[in-house]
């Protein structure tokens, strides 16, 4: 963002970025803090600072795509207006320029300069333009401990003329002395309604037709991460833009997100002996009808069938981690399974996830998970109730 700002500043009028090619995530970034979706509490507090023009040091934390960076940028823009924005706000992305030297040189140098006199009426409107500057440290949790330690004295020394805003995903990675100097704001994952209204707004602006099912698919695949769902939406529209009569289907979204289709996961679960709807395949439930229905659609899973199925899935090219997480959902969220079975399966999943993170072979581990889960699922039920 920081660099992007600089870039547009440098060659702004000469050849501005074609708005069509601009990522929608940037294009539809909220302009004012009132535009920020679904973070009412934070927004309410920040709105007060706009009127009082005093700001504490701030620490924004929360999962990705919840609007942390957007909020602080919008706030800064409202405080300073477009003209002063560049001289008053320093945004540092910690992921490439971390380390103690950056803190010492760049931040210190910026913090040291006394802000120029307030210029009012930049584009006709007056901005509060308080007499301090804002330093935004994005991805602050990936700063080294030393860099964070170096920051604490700087924060106090220049408190008169600078305000810091730390943005991070994991508040636990910020050292305690820093965290205690800031007022903390938690950003919660976006709820379904806000995501939906935001996506529908963008779809309207971009003149693309999106069915409600597609929006639901977007929300489900992104899990509260608005940036991700917007990116998916843009990619999907890009893929279908050649011919106007094709609409974006939920399947397109799933394919873009790399999600394995539900039918395939259901089929996989069935091979292991769980019906996604009816529970374990063996007729151990007292409900006779269910048992009857289940009995003739299933055969008891055996080694060869499970292995064949796993081989097939791997050949289809689905990612192991994705398969694992979706199969996990299919089994753990199944209401008809015994909780004991579920906890056994959960252990298996946890172990396999660790293995995949360590870079183990996918096929072997998916097979192992499948075999062990089917063993637990099909183990004879203890007679005690």
């Amino acid at each position, binding site marked *: 963002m920081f*660099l*992007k700002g600089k*870039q547009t500043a440098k060659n702004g009028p000469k050849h501005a970025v074609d708005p*069509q*090619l601009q990522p929608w995530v940037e294009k539809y970034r909220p302009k004012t803090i009132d535009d920020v979706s679904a973070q009412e509490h934070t927004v309410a507090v920040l709105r007060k600072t706009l009127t009082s023009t005093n700001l504490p040091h701030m620490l924004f934390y929360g999962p990705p795509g919840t609007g942390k960076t957007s909020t602080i940028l919008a706030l800064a823009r409202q405080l300073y207006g477009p003209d002063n924005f560049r001289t008053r706000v320093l945004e540092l*992305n910690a*992921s*490439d320029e971390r380390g103690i030297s950056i803190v010492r040189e760049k931040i210190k140098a910026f913090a040291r300069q006394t802000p120029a006199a307030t210029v009012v009426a930049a584009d006709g409107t007056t901005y509060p333009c308080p007499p301090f500057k804002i330093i935004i440290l994005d991805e602050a949790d990936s700063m080294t401990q030393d860099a964070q330690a170096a920051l604490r004295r700087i924060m106090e020394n220049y408190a008169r003329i600078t305000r810091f805003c730390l943005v991070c995903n994991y508040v636990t990675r910020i050292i305690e002395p820093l965290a205690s100097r800031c007022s903390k704001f938690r950003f919660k994952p976006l709820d379904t309604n806000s995501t939906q209204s935001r996506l529908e707004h963008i779809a309207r602006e971009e003149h693309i037709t999106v069915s409600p099912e597609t929006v639901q698919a977007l929300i489900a695949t992104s899990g509260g991460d608005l*940036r*991700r769902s917007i*990116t998916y939406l843009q*990619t999907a529209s*890009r*893929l*279908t*833009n*050649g*011919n106007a009569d094709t609409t974006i289907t939920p399947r397109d979204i799933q*394919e*873009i*997100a*790399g999600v394995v289709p539900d039918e395939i996961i259901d089929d996989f679960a069935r091979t292991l002996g769980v019906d996604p709807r009816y529970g374990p395949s063996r007729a151990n439930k007292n409900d006779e009808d269910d048992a009857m229905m289940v009995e003739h659609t299933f055969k008891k899973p*055996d*080694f060869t069938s499970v*292995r064949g199925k796993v*081989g097939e899935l*791997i*050949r*289809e*090219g*689905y*990612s*192991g*981690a*994705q398969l694992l997480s979706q199969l996990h959902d299919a089994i753990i969220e199944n209401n008809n399974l015994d909780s004991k079975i579920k906890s056994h399966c959960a252990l298996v999943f946890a172990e396999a996830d660790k*293995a*995949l993170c*360590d*870079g*183990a*072979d*996918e*096929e*072997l*581990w998916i*097979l*192992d998970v499948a*075999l*062990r889960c089917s*063993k637990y699922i099909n183990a004879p039920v203890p007679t005690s109730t």
Partner: protein
Amino acid sequence: MSLWVDKYRPRALDDLHYHTDLSARLKSLAASGDFPHMLFYGPSGAGKKTRISATLRAIFGNGVEKIKIDQRVFVTPTKRKLDVNVVQSNFHIELTPSDVGNYDRVVIQEILKEIAGTQQIDLNAKQRFKVVIINEADSLSRDAQAALRRTMEKYMSNMRLVLCANSTSKLIAPIKSRCLLVRVAAPSPDEMHAVLAHVAKKEKFDLPQSAAEQIVADANGNMRKAILVLEALKMQSPDLTGDLKIAKPDWETYCHKVADMIVAEQTPTQVLAVRAKFYELLSHCIPPTVIIKTVAERVVERVDGALKADVMHWAAVYEMRMRLGSKKIFHLEAWVVKVMTLHKHFMYDIDLSEFA
């Protein structure tokens, strides 16, 4: 004369034999000015590379086929020199950074900066950006991936990345969310038949159904392997009839021998013999993961049904340890001993619960 695999590799998106809807999508992407970063993933031999080069051709025209091979030297901060082979044309550059192991980050940063710093000189080019193809993206180190993450956004104006990987599991989430994921599944048997028939027709000979079926079954979704096998068979017996034998690679038969030894006898002497065989395989540069998988698959065929799941389980466990550890042979051997114990206990029907 080139191999059939290269000779009949489809050049344009329209010539691709299977995944037609994917080809259509790639085509519409290439036609629009707005081309995202892409990540192709799928099993080997499914046609990822073919699709990438066809897409490039659709973007830039025939110019991409004029390639030259270059050897670049990179210097690490610790003054070590790294040699990397790159393939490049006027419009794209292709490299395999994982060749240099831990120093892949340096290579990525240097080369991307270089590409991104220079704009397209050819004024007739259809697009302003250049394309960087990174092979084996899933074996990039974490550092290299983190370095990519920032550069991908920074240099979007004159560079696009195309990553090629076998699986997305080992890529960090920020990279995945910045790319358009393109899954290239292995072709189905029918699709493979069609391709084989196409090759046979071009070479002007008849491919008997039985031979084709045998080849497809053997290739297991790997198109490249299927065509190579077809060519090899054609050399062996020009009429492709009668009793065809698809020659298995040496190491595979060797692995099967090892598996047979494990099932046949479970004694310390046998372990020693197996160990010697493993050393032989390793010294011929067969990846240990491939060894353990092939042997395990063979063992599973030979043992009792009750043992199969356990054999696979321990294969998975020891394979993971092998990746974490540094001495491969220890873990291979440990697995063999484990399987032998399981087998022996099963045979003598001893309650294993205490040892499990």
